[in-house]
């Protein structure tokens, strides 16, 4: 996976973790969802106009034509056909609007990931952050590849049928008999669906990649916890070497000595004061606690921003999976249509699986925090440090659950994924029975 990452132009530099979002950002910038960081008012305004235009023409108008399709449906089959893409579109509209309205908060989260507090300090932590970065890329590809396959199969399908008809079920105020008009509409449809897929891929995988970086940070916390209490007896020489290494970390950032940022300075000052007063171990435990607090607030911010869209996606995917299965089973045997339905199914399942899988990873990483705190040299702690550690262990005994949903909340984990699949299957079974009656 790492070689694929580098092939696509990514940089595996753990000091710049947000570089791993290059795939998603490439799309987001062009789709009008990620404004450039300038102070130039003109560019900002132009960008805003561009994003509105893009969304209106390719998303809203597109979806409108699809909704109008329902004005003349005949039977369940038609409904299923029109519905299964429409669901994705409507969910997409909701997701994109949420993303756009939250774009400042999302940018703030991305800045948090670049802060000094979240920066790896040694090789062990580097490995963990690198894993998150490669996972970010993998998510993007894992979603993109089935999506591209599906769209290409839809695009090619009309050519294999006797009567050419548009790949997407939609209504147009004009007749599409004329070959030129047909071609133009066809291009509009295919480009529209490509844009929808890009919106989908970039926003969804952005969310899951944020969670994956949070996972990396939790693992980093675990590594730091294991080391508390073992630095006793380090001679001054070793400490100086560590400090030098620390400075070397920052020196390589764009070849300038970039200082630690304000937040980190504050934290360092506070911890040093505590160490003076209560001892080295106490200071280290408090440092881990402060870091944990920051991770928790990052996770809850991500959860707050994305819980609506993720839940909407899960709901839509459940219905879509059942509709697609229904179509697959009941459609006249057309191998092209069957193949495209299968790849669409795969895309939908992958979408939910990504979220549930990374949520599961976070649960397991946070589960291990108690154990990793236990691996510190707590026998050597004095009472204050031990008490602090106990309070911390009490807190981390509750896992970090990423939840999705507004009133009715679903924890993102593999058991809930199995539950979603099961409910999808039961809806499909009911629908099938109704159809075959």
């Amino acid at each position, binding site marked *: 996976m790492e070689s694929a990452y580098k092939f696509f132009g990514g940089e595996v530099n753990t000091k710049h973790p947000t570089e791993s979002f290059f795939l998603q950002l490439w799309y987001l910038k062009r789709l009008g969802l990620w404004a450039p960081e300038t102070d130039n008012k003109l560019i900002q305004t132009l960008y805003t106009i561009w994003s509105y235009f893009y969304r209106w023409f390719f998303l809203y108008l597109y979806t409108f034509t699809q909704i109008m399709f329902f004005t003349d449906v005949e039977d369940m089959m038609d409904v299923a056909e029109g519905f299964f893409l429409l669901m994705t579109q409507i969910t997409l509209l909701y997701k994109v609007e949420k993303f756009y309205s939250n774009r400042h908060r999302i940018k703030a989260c991305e800045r948090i990931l670049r802060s000094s507090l979240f920066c790896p300090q040694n090789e062990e932590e580097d490995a963990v952050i690198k894993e998150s970065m490669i996972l970010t890329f993998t998510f993007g590809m894992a979603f993109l590849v089935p999506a591209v396959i599906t769209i290409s199969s839809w695009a090619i399908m009309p050519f294999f049928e006797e009567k050419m008809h548009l790949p997407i079920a939609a209504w147009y105020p004009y007749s599409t008999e004329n070959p030129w008009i047909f071609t133009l509409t066809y291009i509009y449809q295919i480009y529209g669906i490509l844009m929808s897929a890009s919106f989908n891929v970039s926003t969804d995988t952005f969310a899951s990649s944020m969670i994956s970086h949070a996972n990396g940070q939790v693992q980093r916390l675990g590594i730091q916890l294991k080391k508390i209490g073992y630095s006793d007896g380090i001679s001054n020489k070793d400490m100086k070497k560590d400090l030098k290494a620390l400075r070397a970390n920052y020196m390589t950032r764009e070849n300038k000595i970039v200082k630690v940022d304000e937040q980190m300075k504050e934290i360092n000052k506070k911890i040093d004061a505590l160490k003076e007063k209560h001892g080295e171990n106490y200071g280290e435990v408090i440092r881990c606690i402060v870091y944990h607090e920051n991770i928790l607030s990052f996770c809850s911010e991500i959860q707050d921003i994305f819980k609506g869209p993720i839940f909407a996606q899960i709901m839509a995917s459940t219905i879509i999976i059942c509709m697609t299965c229904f179509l697959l089973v009941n459609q006249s045997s057309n191998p092209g249509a069957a193949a495209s339905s299968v790849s669409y199914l795969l895309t939908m399942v992958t979408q939910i699986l990504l979220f549930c899988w990374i949520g599961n990873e976070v649960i*397991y990483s946070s589960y291990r925090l108690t154990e990793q705190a236990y691996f510190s040299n707590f*026998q050597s702690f*004095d*009472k204050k440090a031990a008490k602090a550690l106990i309070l911390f262990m009490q807190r981390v005994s509750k896992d970090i659950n990423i939840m999705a949903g507004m009133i009715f909340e679903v924890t993102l984990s593999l058991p809930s994924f199995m539950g979603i699949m099961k409910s999808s299957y039961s809806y499909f079974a009911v629908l099938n029975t109704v159809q075959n009656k």
Partner: protein
Amino acid sequence: MQVQQPKYTGLVADLLPNIRIMQAIGHFIFRYITGPILIRKLYSSVTLVLFLFQFVCILINLGANTDEVSELTANTITALFFTHCITKFIYVALNAEGVYRTMGIWNQSNTHPLFAESDARYHSIALSKMRRLLFLVTLTTCMIAVFWTTLTFFGDSTKLWKDKVANETIVVDIPRLMIKSWYPWNSMSGTFYYISLAFQLYYILFSMLQANLSDVLFCSWVLFCCEQLQHLKGIMRPLMELSATLDTYRPNSAALFRSISAGSKSELILNDEMENEKNSNYDMNISAIYSTKADWGAQYRAPTTLQNFNGMNGSNPNGLTKKQELMVRSAIKYWVERHKHVVRLVSAIGDTYGLALLLHMLTSTIMLTLLAYQATKIDGITVFALGVIGYLLYALAQIFLFCIFGNRLIEESSSVMEAAYSCHWYDGSEEAKTFVQIVCQQCQKAMTISGAKFFTVSLDLFASVLGACVTYFMVLVQLK
């Protein structure tokens, strides 16, 4: 010239019979041996090729008989059954490094003179249980192979074949072999029949042994961890009493320094002997546990108390000597280090074998569903019925084996908290109380083995599998 047998220590020594049998039946484990590795590699590769050949033959037979539903189901069940064996074989081959790493985590452990007896006792309990488990599983597998072979010679050796021309099902004769399989030679009768028979017997025995013995290896590891936790629980109370001697006056503190373990029957070592012991062995034990002064330096607020050891010490109401105090403080450190060691071993076991368990569960789920379907067609004590019941019991027994050990680990690790609480911690020193608090906090979360983070290996898993199986059976019976 006799080659010196290398001495294996720790887990490897305990599991040596298991490893040896696994190596004998062809697993790709090439460490812990003396002699040429090349021959063993050759042997394992040949075994792999033979097994894959037979498995492919079974699949070809499956593919050739897809028309008739009952034949299809029966052949699929057989194919899935042997998928377990191939999967475990290939898994151990690919993950041999993980196995070595897990074994290597416990090649040496810390010791403490006061608790050595308890350690040895639980270690020997673990050893005997592991041997018993290995013996039972090997015996059962051999018996199953014999049973299967015997069953083949009862009943009709036929299969159902859908004649497409006449569009009806006819009965066709097939060779009287244990597994319905295609062969590139005609195995109906003659020498080829006996060759096929012998080959199938070898295949059944060896592949079942392979699958089961790798599960036994996993269960032995878990068993070892459980017994270590029992040992830790057992020494909790003496530990507390020892630490109490540091702070509170105890009339019989001298007696505590005899070789202490719960319920031990060993010789009592006089306190004087302990004091006069100046041999390096004793010192080395302690220094192996303690390496820095900082370990106990933090406890003392007034440094002068360290120097004065003549007679009654102000901060020590029982008049313990320096050596005895050192032993007490090192006892807690021993406990914690041993516990951390066990936690490390459990996570290594989970990392090494978790994926194999996940694959096992996936295959078993499908197989049990199909078996439930087959079970609805039983209409009397026939060869078919015995076969289906045999498959069912075997599959469920395999799952039960690792579930029960996983469950025991969960129970043992969560009961450490209760043991820590119930050992009169209020008598202990301040240091001991902090230690109990942290241990309780950690042990609230039971140590679990997870199947690659998908599920936890426990009896709940077994219950859900069994429940699902019964549900499918009921539903299918209704549908008939």
